[in-house]
């Protein structure tokens, strides 16, 4: 009933048998652009990203850096949730560990790149150890355990007062070493760009091929995965630890960017925005992390001009809308919109 009336109203954009909703909800293969377009796109994108901090005021560099930080979180979380099918509402905890690794490391006089390495390693280890019991649980229960992690994070930071200085927080010197002629915002921008680029390339490699297929098998059918020789248990714990490492590095960069960390930076809302990010961008897609990061960075800015409470409402509404109409996120929408166009471009691979 509803389906037919929707079709009549929208006048069916193409001769499909289903309604517009069905058309939107349809799974689609990734766009396979011709090689020349990919190379040109990467070249233009890289040049633009390299120039941005040199020609813009620092507040713009700040927001673009934040987009890259969210992208990094989204890449890791999507490996775990989108590809591996293991829900986590608790990645703000790993983000916090990374941020405090940089803050505490900075106080101890360790240089930035080294503290960032710690910001990757420490959440990786914590994620691995927490994952050992937590990943025995499935679906809702795993969601609840990780939710508890997110809720406990600010309290845990306050409780670790000798290390974290509790509610007072820690001020961080985010300036580059003296021999690098960059301002603070430019320095953190380039660090974030490097981290996000490496993260993107690594995620793409993991998500495709043998390992990517094993993640999807674990998500869709554990017994089948085991029959194929996939060590389901090891796959889950490694995914959890790896995604924690992504969040940790992002948290470390966040601390350097803001030059301050305090317990209130890492509340439950942060975790919810991470989940919103991957759902909006597109579960189980790599480019989705970028689109989702743009969403969580810029939409709250727009909504807060209406009311500070509007952000939560917007996230809620958007999550519902995506669950119903765009289960494959913005990437799904891009595929739907550009699929036919890209397929017609000359020089496509495999044709």
């Amino acid at each position, binding site marked *: 009933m509803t389906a037919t009336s929707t079709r009549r109203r929208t006048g069916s954009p193409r001769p499909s048998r289903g309604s517009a909703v069905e058309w939107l909800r349809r*799974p689609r*293969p990734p766009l396979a652009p011709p090689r020349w377009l990919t190379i040109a796109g990467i070249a233009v994108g890289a040049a633009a990203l390299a120039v941005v901090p040199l020609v813009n005021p620092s507040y713009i560099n700040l927001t673009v850096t934040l987009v890259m930080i969210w992208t990094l979180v989204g890449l890791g979380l999507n490996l775990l949730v989108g590809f591996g099918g293991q829900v986590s509402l608790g990645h703000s905890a790993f983000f916090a560990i990374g941020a405090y690794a940089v803050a505490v490391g900075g106080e101890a006089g360790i240089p930035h790149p080294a503290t960032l390495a710690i910001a990757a390693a420490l959440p990786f280890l914590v994620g691995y150890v927490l994952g050992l019991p937590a990943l025995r649980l499935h679906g809702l229960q795993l969601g609840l355990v990780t939710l508890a992690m997110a809720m406990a994070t600010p309290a845990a930071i306050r409780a670790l007062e000798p290390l974290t200085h509790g509610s007072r927080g820690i001020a961080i010197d985010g300036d580059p070493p003296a021999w690098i002629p960059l301002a603070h915002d430019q320095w953190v921008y380039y660090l974030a760009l490097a981290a996000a680029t490496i993260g993107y*390339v*690594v995620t793409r*490699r*993991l998500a495709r*091929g*043998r*390992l990517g*297929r*094993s993640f*999807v*098998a674990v998500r*869709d*059918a554990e*017994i*089948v*995965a*085991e*029959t*194929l*020789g*996939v*060590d*389901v248990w090891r796959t889950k714990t*490694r995914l959890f630890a*790896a995604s924690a490492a992504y969040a940790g590095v992002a948290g470390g960069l966040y601390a350097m960017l803001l030059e301050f960390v305090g317990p209130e930076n890492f509340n439950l809302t942060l975790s919810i925005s991470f989940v919103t990010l991957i759902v909006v961008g597109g579960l189980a897609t790599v480019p989705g992390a970028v689109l989702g990061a743009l969403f969580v960075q810029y939409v709250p800015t727009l909504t807060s001009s209406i009311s500070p409470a509007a952000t939560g409402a917007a996230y809620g509404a958007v999550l519902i809308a995506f669950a119903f109409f765009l289960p494959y996120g913005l990437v799904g929408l891009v595929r739907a919109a550009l699929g036919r166009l890209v397929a017609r471009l000359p020089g496509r691979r495999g044709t």
Partner: protein
Amino acid sequence: MDALLAVSEVRLSFGGLQALDGPSLQVRDGEVVGLIGPNGAGKTSLFNCIGGLYRPQSGSIRIAGREVAGLPRHRIAALGVGRTFQNIGLLASQTVLANVLAGAHHVAAGGWWATALGLPSVARSERDHRERAMALLAELDLADVAGRMVGTLPFGTLKRVELARALMGEPRLLLVDEPANGLVHGEVLELGATLRRLATERGAAILLVEHHMGLVTSVCDRVVVLDFGRVIAEGEPHEVARDPRVVAAYLGTAA
């Protein structure tokens, strides 16, 4: 003696139900063995014990000399065991090609670090297995559905996709659970020919659970009949089909 698969006196019960009551059987390299019996005879239970999905309470199952009982499930594929599922165990969200490639998991290269670093060995392995997968799909007459999502294809096609996936792992022992289920007559004959060819060309042993007697008699070298979890007959297909115990098991005995 040197059987590829040696099942010996396996017992499995679910609560009070004795699903397997000590059957023994052997499969040699390159042999096609049919496992038949009425519904509830324990065929799929025995299959799942061999594949590691169930752990029998007693008895032994050895594949190429290795005891299977107690081995983690994901280690069994590496012993050279491939299987298909009665109700299709494909990943519906993926393409046919991706599903078939997933069958190469334990023979393909590419651990976490090697993949993250993009080592050439990983790319080479991926390319080789992609070629193998396409060749297999062509062999099983599936080449033109390679890019299709599994969820959109008919049951009979999916049975063949599953077979292709099991073959990607280069099994020495192929466990095939009711392949003719849901196929029309012509497809059954074709499937029989395919299975026979796989056994001769690849030297793979096949253990086949099947209801379709026509397929069993045309394909199998030997047939094992289960009833109430026990082996009640074993031998060449035509002999077994005439065995009074088998007839009684299928049709019921006069009281």
